[in-house]
């Protein structure tokens, strides 16, 4: 059962892990378990980090928050909002219980990503429980720190395969004074062109699907007003809900059982010749594709365009879901994994077969 009170259960987690190391028991690490669909299927005893929760420190004028990994994202966002601040990378929740640890371990970012930066960009420091059973601290609570290798950011997006995140310090930013979402009717090719020719406008999100282009403007009232005047288009009413639905895949596009692919591409890449339905996010840099096309065809097309493809949701989650690594990169990944988790018990195989 998940605890609902703030608590530091780092020592208990360490004991559980030490035992698992001794027994060589693989662990399946979870926060709110809202992203269990993501990555490969991993076998292991369920280890919940959800009970390790609470904001450790937050200083609005320092632009830094530190919280335990099990802290619900929603709690953190509410606290930041009280002080007119936000997590700039707009992390997807994918469920009510989603936690900070899960957000950082998955390294996923929402619609604001191409304009504000990614989850890892905002990581300043972490405390991590490695597969050696040690609690280590890397980075810190200051904006700039180049002492030692950047292990905090290496852990962001590592899907719990290198260590169990215990607490995380993030840079936060003021919320924009105002936001407005504009909508235009156009084709996909026109949308891609608009995304890129309007890159100097105060954009914070740019999406295209079903013949409609959506642009979110953020900034001061004057700047947003002026950009609105330049761009035209219609405004949409409940923009906050709209973008939250896109972010969390509650938008009607995602209401489907067909395998969902995420293609990451140079943003100006023309529409790709793959069968299925598309939703273009991140100003064209992240494209969602619902398709039954073969993994090979999708990956080849993405790679040819200078990008990569992930089987994001559904499909065969026992085979590789992430874009294959080159042999030299794969070998290096395995060596890194072994240096953090020598017994290979942390989320084994969640990222790639073998680690």
């Amino acid at each position: 059962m998940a605890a609902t009170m703030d608590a530091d259960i780092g020592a208990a987690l360490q004991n559980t892990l030490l035992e698992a190391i001794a027994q060589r028991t693989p662990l399946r690490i979870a926060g709110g378990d809202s992203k269990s669909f993501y990555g490969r299927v991993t076998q292991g005893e369920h280890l919940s980090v959800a009970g390790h929760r609470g904001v450790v420190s937050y200083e609005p004028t320092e632009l830094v928050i530190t919280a335990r990994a099990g802290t619900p994202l929603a709690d953190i966002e509410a606290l930041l909002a009280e002080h007119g601040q936000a997590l700039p990378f707009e992390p997807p929740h994918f469920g009510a219980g989603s936690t900070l640890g899960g957000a950082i371990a998955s390294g996923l970012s929402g619609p604001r990503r191409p304009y504000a930066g990614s989850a890892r960009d905002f990581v300043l420091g972490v405390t991590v429980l490695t597969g050696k059973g040690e609690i280590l601290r890397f980075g810190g609570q200051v904006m700039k720190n180049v002492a030692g290798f950047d292990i905090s950011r290496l852990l962001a997006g590592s899907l719990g395969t290198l260590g169990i995140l215990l607490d995380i310090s993030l840079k936060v930013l003021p919320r924009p004074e105002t936001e407005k979402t504009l909508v235009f009717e156009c084709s996909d090719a026109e949308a891609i062109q608009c995304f890129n020719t309007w890159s100097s406008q105060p954009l914070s999100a740019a999406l295209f699907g079903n013949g409609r282009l959506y642009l979110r403007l953020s900034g001061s009232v004057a700047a947003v007003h002026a950009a609105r005047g330049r761009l035209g288009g219609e405004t949409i009413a409940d923009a906050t809900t709209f973008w939250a639905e896109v972010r969390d895949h509650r938008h009607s596009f995602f209401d489907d059982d067909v395998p969902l692919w995420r293609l990451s591409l140079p943003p100006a890449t023309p529409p790709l010749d793959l069968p299925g339905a598309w939703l273009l996010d991140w100003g064209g840099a992240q494209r969602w594709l619902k398709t039954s096309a073969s993994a090979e065809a999708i990956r080849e097309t993405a790679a040819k365009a200078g990008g990569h493809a992930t089987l994001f949701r559904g499909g065969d989650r026992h085979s590789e879901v992430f874009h294959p690594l080159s042999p030299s990169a794969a070998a290096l990944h395995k060596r890194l994994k072994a240096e953090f988790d020598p017994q290979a018990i942390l989320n084994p195989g969640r990222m790639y077969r073998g680690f």
Partner: protein
Amino acid sequence: MQISSTHDTSSLDKPALISALHRLLPGDSVLFEREDLRPYECDGLSAYREVPLAVCLPQTVEQVREVLRLCHERNVPVVARGAGTGLSGGALPLSNGVLLSLARFMSILEIDPVNRVARVQPGVRNLAISQAAAPYGLYYAPDPSSQIACTIGGNVAENSGGVHCLKYGLTVHNVLGLKVLTIAGELLEIGGAALDAPGYDLLALMTGSEGLLGVIVEVTVKLLPKPERAQVVLAAFDDVVKAGEAVGRIIGAGIIPGGLEMMDNLAIRAAEDFIHAGYPVDAAAILLCELDGANEEVSEQILRVRQLLQEAGATEVRTARDEQERARFWAGRKAAFPAVGRISPDYYCMDGTIPRKRLPEVLSRIAELSREYDLPVANVFHAGDGNLHPLILYDANKPGELERTEEFGGKILDLCVAVGGAITGEHGVGMEKINQMCHQFAPPELAQFHSVKHAFDPQGLLNPGKAVPTLHRCAEFGAMHVHGGKLSHPGLERF
């Protein structure tokens, strides 16, 4: 100072190595005569010097690969070098090693204005990227003060910052892809023009790795549209503490300036003397606050910031009247290091970071130390993100003064760690801060750094002895690890 790696190269046949290098590279690309090696004996931290065994100046990635393979095979350490402007001795050669200069990799391979990326060779100068992107209305955001000279490869290796990184991020936030050669000569392609590559974030790991994990042979950077307008406000204060408070007020008001820099009186006077930037020389401190973005937004923010500065007790607030004056205000700041170099035979540049709110106590403690050591200090401060550059003025020709300066510098870094900050914000650990690493990190963290290094370079041939101290060294140094602002032995006198 004698610096050599722990590698036993006593059996190394030097002439044989040089002739092997000659087989791989054209004649003018291998230097081995003492007078030819001299220019490479130090980086920007000239107090540390060492002549390398040989210098290689390859011109193709294939040549770099061959040199690395040869050194790997013969167990010869390799130190990569960009422009040698580093300030922590990162590119300091090893007497028993090869210095691998990337200076000839000067091509901008591609500017892609639509996808807003540039693909460049590692020896391209930081400023050259922005210059090449300028015709498209784009630029590369990180702007170290050394940008006319330093290379992008060096910037990646150090995760360099600049005066605009509060808003636009450090190198790590602006690099999208790398091509890296491992010591074994394997090519790793990391990231690219598409965001968030699959697998572990090797891009973040390589950035700031100080030449210990691989040799960067190509860099893809993000280009940003030039802001419609940029304007700088200069505020003078009769007290550095007030200037520090003003910084908190601006950020507390929800404004993230493009740049937010502070200089204290000694730095102001040195810069004014050198650049004639128009700084108020009587001020205890000045703040330079640049606001950029859409025209309307900048106008609004200028008014807000002026008001906030006045409320914080500024004795004078000036908005640069035109682009020339704005450029002059920045020129003074960017020339602060050489300006201090003009008023003192030598200076030692520190690079600690602190939580911003601790600024008043840190500055007063530095002032106390300055009196104690009888060495003047000029403070230049990336105020927005808490990165201090105290410049200690000294004279290396006076016996014992360098040693006193280093000890003083070490205390400043200890102070940064004790208030919850870091021993380096952008200049790197290199050779210089290797002992302070024992304060910043406990042995298990240091051991994990060595583990990461081991995954890339099991023989420890790339830039050995830098950036991460051995546990043995820390034990010898007798360092005390400081954690979470608390000393492990709080009863002991530290500063």
